[in-house]
C-alpha cells in the first residue's frame, strides 16, 4: 500500500506499538580519541580523571556530578 512519491500523513492501518522504548538519544561529548560519555558524565567536571565512571552504562544519577 505504500506510495513512493508522497509523504503519508493519514493511514487507517497505522499502528504504534503500545510500549515505551529507551532511545539512546542522550547527548554525547567527545572526550578523547575513541571515548564518548553519555548522560551526566558528558558534562561533568570530573570526567577525565573520575575514579568512579563506568564506560558501559549511561549515568543518570551521581552524587559527585559537578
Amino acid at each position, binding site marked *: 500500500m505504500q506510495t513512493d512519491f508522497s509523504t503519508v500523513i493519514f493511514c487507517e492501518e497505522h499502528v504504534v506499538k*503500545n*510500549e*515505551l522504548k*529507551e*532511545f*539512546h*538519544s*542522550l*547527548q*554525547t561529548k567527545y572526550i578523547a580519541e*575513541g571515548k*564518548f560519555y*553519555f*548522560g*551526566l558524565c*558528558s*558534562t561533568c567536571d*570530573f570526567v577525565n*580523571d*573520575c*575514579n*568512579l*565512571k*563506568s564506560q*558501559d*552504562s*549511561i*549515568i*543518570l*544519577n*551521581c*552524587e*559527585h*556530578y*559537578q
Partner: protein
Amino acid sequence: MEVKAQEKKKTGMYENVMNQFNHAADLMNLDKGIRKILSSTNSEIVVHFPVKMDDGSIETFTGYRVQHNNALGPYKGGLRYHPTVDIDAARALAIWMTWKTALAGLPFGGAKGGIEIDPKKYSMNELERISRRFTFALGDNIGPDLDIPAPDVNTNAQIMAWISDTFASQKSPSNRFNNLHVVTGKPMGSGGLEGRDRATGFGVVATIKSWAKVRGVDLKGMKYIVQGYGNVGYWTAHFLNQLGAIMVAAQDASATLYNEKGIDVEALYQHSLGYKNQIEGFDGAEVIDSEKFFGLDCDIIVPAALGNQITKDNAHDIKAKLIAEGANGPTDTDAEAILLERGVDVIPDILCNSGGVIGSYYEWLQNKRSEIWKLDQVLDMIHDKVSIAFDKVVETSKEYDTHWRNGAYLVALKRLEQTYKERGVFP
C-alpha cells in the same frame, strides 16, 4: 560508526527499571490490564519557552515534565537542568519514582522533568528568569495537589523557591499561601523542612538498623566503607558513626582512601568542603588503588555515588555481609546474582535511599498543615516510614520466596494493583 557500536552495548536506567518491573509483575501475576497501565506514562508535557538574556537577546528553551502514574496521589519527582534531559531520560526516572513512592507507602505517584540546558553557561539572573518562565509554561500542569517537583541534578533550594514564588504569584491573593508547596526542597525560610539535607543518609542508616535487627547482629564495632562522599555518603557515615560503626574506607571521584583503624568521618567531611567537595588530599588515611575498594575487609558496603559500580568483575571480591544501596542502581543484575549466591544481603536502592522522598513528603505535609516541625520529630517520622517499608519488604520476600529487590517491587506493585482493583478504571 564507533559511537553506534558503543551505544549498542550500553545499558540504561530505563532498561533496568522495566526489567525489574516485568520480573516482579510476572512473580505476582500482576493483572494484565494494570500491567498495561503501568507500562506507559499518563502525561508527557513538552514546553518551548522564550527568555530574555542579560545582553538583551532572546533564547528559547525546551522543558519536559513526564507524569507516569498518580493512582496513589499527586505526581512527585525532581526537575533537573542538564543538556541530556530529554523525554526518554525523564520517562525512566518518572517510572522509578512511581515504584519508590508506592514502596515507601506515600500518597504520591511518580514524575520527572527538567530543562535541556547547561546551567554553567548562564548567569544567576538568567537562571532565575529561565526557572520562572519554565514554571509559567508548565502552568497548571503542576500544583500542590497535582504534581510536586523537587530539586535534582543542577537544581537546588533557590530554584525551588523561584518556582514556588512564580506558581503562587499567579494565584489570587487569598490562595497564594495554599500553593507555595507546589515544590519540595525549598529553603528553610520558604517552608523548607528541617533535616531535609540528611533525610536520605538517615534513611540509609534506618534500613541498616532494620537489617541488623533481622540478622541479629550488633552494628557497634562493625567496619563499613562508603563510595561517594557527597550528601548521601557523608550523612550515612555520620549516623553510622553514632551507632559505633567504624568507617575504614571512602571513595569518590577524586580518590580512594583507606585506614584500617578508622577514618574520622567529620574531619573528612570538613576537608572535602574546603577542597571542591573532594576527599583527595585528606591526611587521615592512605590512598589506595581504586580497583581494590570493593574487595576491602569490611562488614558493610554503602555505594552512595552512582550506578553500575558492583558488577560481575568485582562481586566475587566482596567480603562484606551487606550492600546498602544509597545510590540508584549501583549493583547490576549479574553482580546481584553472585552476591545472593554467596549469602551477601543487598538492601535495594528503591528502599535504601527512600529517606529523601519521605523527607519531601513531610515537607509537603508540614506546608499543607501550616506547621513547622523540629528536626527530631522529622527524623523520627522518617525512621518509622523506612522501618515499616523494610519490614514489609522482608515479609513479602518470604511470602514469595524471593530476594529483597523483588520483594520491594512486589510491595510497590501490590499497592498500585490494590488501588486500581478497588477503584476500577473510569468510565
